[in-house]
């Protein structure tokens, strides 16, 4: 395992976006940072700026106003980036499915790498999801041109 993929596995920094969620998933996500669950054990840090983040955690239904913001934030993140959809609303609209202001799942707005179901998912489920993501993360292929730019020739991958 190369240094780079090792370091990516060990250090997923997450940026959390609440895209019109009911707070349930958000407080469970925050709860997973607190002493009982402590995802910092896995190297996870909640970072304040999307520029610093590796993983975009999205909760909620992505309503008409948040859709654009969500796209902007996704674009602000540097490659390689991953998107995790947390909770029923982010997966498919959840209980608000077919409401007039609701997107049925955020994967209609941005590409999603991992889905964590639940309404809301327990912190254990969120941690399990992150572990899963750490499993898949290094395998995600970058665009060749971008990889050339970032990693440079000869760097371990």
């Amino acid at each position, binding site marked *: 395992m190369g240094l780079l993929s090792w370091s990516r596995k060990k250090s997923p920094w997450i940026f959390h976006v609440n895209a019109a969620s009911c707070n349930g998933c958000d407080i469970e996500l925050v709860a997973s940072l607190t002493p009982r669950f402590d995802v910092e054990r896995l190297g996870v840090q909640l970072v304040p700026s999307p520029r610093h983040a590796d993983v975009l955690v999205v909760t909620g239904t992505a309503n*008409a106003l948040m859709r654009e913001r969500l796209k902007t934030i996704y674009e602000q993140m540097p490659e390689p980036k991953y998107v995790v959809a947390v909770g029923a609303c982010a997966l498919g609209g959840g209980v608000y499915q077919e409401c007039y202001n609701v997107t049925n799942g955020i994967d209609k707005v941005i590409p999603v790498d991992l889905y964590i179901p639940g309404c809301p998912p327990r912190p254990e489920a969120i941690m399990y999801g992150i572990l899963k993501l750490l499993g898949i993360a290094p395998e995600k292929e970058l665009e060749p041109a971008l990889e050339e730019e970032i990693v440079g020739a000869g760097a371990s991958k």
Partner: protein
Amino acid sequence: MEPERVSRLTTALEATATQQRNSTLLAVKPERIIEACKMVVEDREFYHLTTITAIDEGQVISLFYHFWRGTEFLTVKTAVPKSDPRLQSVTEALPAALFYEAEIADLLGVVFVGSPMTGRKLLLPDNYPTDAPSPLRKESNPAQIRKMMGLD
């Protein structure tokens, strides 16, 4: 509510009053709504405007101004025709009504004359279709609105 207070309000406002449980319903004409709100608020005990409810009743849109006094509700009811839903804004007398009026203006398309929010889209997203009915009106259809907004 004390009978004399009720009768004072009904005679002054040409209103009709009905009472049930701990709430009193005072039906007034739409043109007297500001006067009614002022009278209620001048009665210092009813300063708390809980909210304004609006309902699409087919031909008319009814508005309920709920005031709370510690043990009982006083609801001032009025109605505007759906064909021309215009009503005087009460924000002069009741600053707290600002947001409640704004949400009704957006969700039911009632125009509040004199409200600082007049003419602005308040509640709904920027790309809410202009030709679709307000979402809480009976004739609105969520599936259609979704399609028009391009959410699917």
